[in-house]
């Protein structure tokens, strides 16, 4: 006969296991490593809100799993990136890493994710290497590669009949990668880039280079700057009288979130990106409405990228019914899923970068309005990626 204590233990164990069954598994730990201070703070908040909006829409759970958030402010500082990412990986033992905006920080995160084999979803940073030389089965990106908008703009500029173009950007990874993309697209279309102008990041004294552009008289100029630099460049370009004679093109970052400050100088500028402010699809409109209701702010491309990071994670978890331990199946499902993004549907490339439509947009008022699809279903070439799927 079973003694009383043994019986109670058994009963308790039974009770506990049934309880655990009812509740499902413990919460999934999601580590958000985003900039919450500094120049990119607004972008970090948008990404977090986008991510949480999708989880909220699913009733606060992904595939039946509660989500527990851990947050680290990466300050957009690459020198602190390894320490910061290890706080999430080693101290908090997160299951999934989500981050970040700054490419230098994201590269450090990708390195740490490869070493610790932690699942990483990059919701913004465009450095080509993340889904190029650094690619891995556990690293995904829901935004873009720097190459993508550049290439699309090169194609558009060539279609417009431009033959000789000049490029101008800050001499750092993002600038050089987007210029490479432009050159590839433009020269494939029969154009020729006659000169690449660069200046050190974050120098904003453009006058000398504008004079150089005026002297060379190209048919078109492709420029990549962001934030304050983008505002100043577009205004200076206009003030130098160049807008009237030489069309200016750029990736979306040249006019995203800066149109108010750029004023009339930016009106009518054509840029390429994977999102536009007025995509009139039901998916986008319901997303924007929901976002506005929840956060009392207008969604932007960063919110979309955060939202899609949550969708991607949700798709993987759903495929394994929330069982995070079936990792290989989950990663496989994430790579094969098609995301119904507010930007339009996109699939993942073999290197885990979105294969997406790149839109041509025109600056009107404070919006970058959709004009046409510059390149349909554009896939990053993933140079240097040695992952076979």
């Amino acid at each position, binding site marked *: 006969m079973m003694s009383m204590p043994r019986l109670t233990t058994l009963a308790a164990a039974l009770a506990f296991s049934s309880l655990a069954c009812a509740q499902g598994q413990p919460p999934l730990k999601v580590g958000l490593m985003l900039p919450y201070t*500094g*120049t990119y*703070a*607004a972008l970090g908040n948008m990404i977090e809100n986008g991510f949480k909006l999708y989880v909220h829409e699913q009733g606060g759970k992904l595939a039946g799993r509660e989500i527990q958030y851990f947050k680290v402010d990466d300050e957009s500082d690459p020198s602190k990136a390894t320490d910061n990412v290890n706080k999430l990986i080693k101290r908090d033992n997160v299951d999934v890493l989500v981050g970040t905006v700054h490419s230098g920080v994201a590269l450090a995160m990708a390195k740490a994710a490869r070493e610790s084999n932690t699942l990483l979803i990059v919701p913004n940073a465009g450095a080509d290497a993340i889904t190029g030389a650094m690619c891995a089965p556990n690293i995904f990106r829901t935004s873009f590669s720097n190459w993508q908008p550049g290439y699309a703009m090169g194609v558009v500029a060539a279609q417009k009949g431009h033959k000789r173009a000049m490029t101008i950007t800050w*001499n750092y990874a993002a600038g050089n990668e987007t210029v490479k993309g432009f050159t590839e697209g433009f020269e494939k279309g029969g154009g020729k880039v006659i000169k*690449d*102008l*660069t*200046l*050190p990041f*974050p*120098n*904003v*004294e453009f*006058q*000398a*280079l*504008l*004079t*150089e552009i*005026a*002297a060379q008289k190209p048919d078109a100029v492709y420029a990549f700057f962001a*934030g*304050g630099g*983008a*505002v*100043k460049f577009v*205004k*200076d370009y206009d*003030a*130098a*009288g*160049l807008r009237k004679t030489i069309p200016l093109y750029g990736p979306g970052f040249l006019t995203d*979130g*800066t149109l*108010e*400050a*750029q*004023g009339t100088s930016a009106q009518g500028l054509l840029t390429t990106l994977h999102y536009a402010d007025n995509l009139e699809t039901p998916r986008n409109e319901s997303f924007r409405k929901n976002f506005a209701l929840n956060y009392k702010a207008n969604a932007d491309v960063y919110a979309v990228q955060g939202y899609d990071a949550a969708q991607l994670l949700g798709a993987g978890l759903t495929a394994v019914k929330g069982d995070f331990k079936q990792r290989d199946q989950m990663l496989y499902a994430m790579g094969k899923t098609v995301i119904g993004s507010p930007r339009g549907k996109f699939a993942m490339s073999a290197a885990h970068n979105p294969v997406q439509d790149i839109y041509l947009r025109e600056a009107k008022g404070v919006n970058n309005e959709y004009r046409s699809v510059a390149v349909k279903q554009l896939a990053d070439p993933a140079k240097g990626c040695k992952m076979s799927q």
Partner: protein
Amino acid sequence: MDLATFLVQCLNAVQYGLLLFLVASGLTLIFGIMGVINLAHGSFYMVGAYLAFAIAPLFGQNFLLMLVVGVLLAAAFGYALEWAFYSYLYQREHLQQVLMTYALILVFEELRSLLVGNDVHGVAAPQWLAGSIELGALMSYPVYRLFASAACIVVALALYYVVNRTRLGMMIRAGASNRDMVRGLGIDIRRLYRIVFAAGVALAALAGMIAAPMSSVYPGMGNHVLIICFVVVVIGGIGSITGALIASLLVGAVDTFGKVFFAELSGIGVYVLMAIILVWRPEGLMKRSY
């Protein structure tokens, strides 16, 4: 490069140099004459730019009046700041000065973030300066840039006059070389320093206000300017207004032509210049003559 392009590039160089001078002159006053390493100088530049953004709508086309009001506000701000913080720094080591002025950078950035937010803003130039003039067939040059250069020249002349030709300037120079002796002669040195500091802040803020319509107003703008200002001050000779002017023009030229001819290396051009000049003249171009 043909002659027309070359001349426009020279204009660019002078124009950039003059704007640098405007910011750096305030730094050389504070650093050279009062002996305080003021890392927060870039923040004063930023304060000026944000001030222009904030008060420009109140003044409409009355741009010059706005500059005057802005300068007065900045000077009052500098006066109060000296009283509250900087007056305790004169007898301290450089490390403590660096610590406190660095802390001020963080405070100003955070205040800016709380008050105005992290967005990038533009300031419109007034109508009467908004046009541009044609420079041959090459390109047009914004009138506002020429106005900015003219304003910088006016400030440079005024500064030179005040420091070298007036009684106040004499007291400032005397205070820089021997603080105790000046006090012994019955001059209120504390008040004098307070005025110099207020003037330094006002100069940086004026530079920020003048630069605002040309560039834009954005977080962290002060830090970009700070480093190049220290380069100017060190090349020119610490405390020398004339030296700062020459150094600014040199830096403007090296930066402008460096970008055109040696794009890949343009980031280091001004630092190479600084290294060469310091080897040749360890105290800078114009050693303080008083």
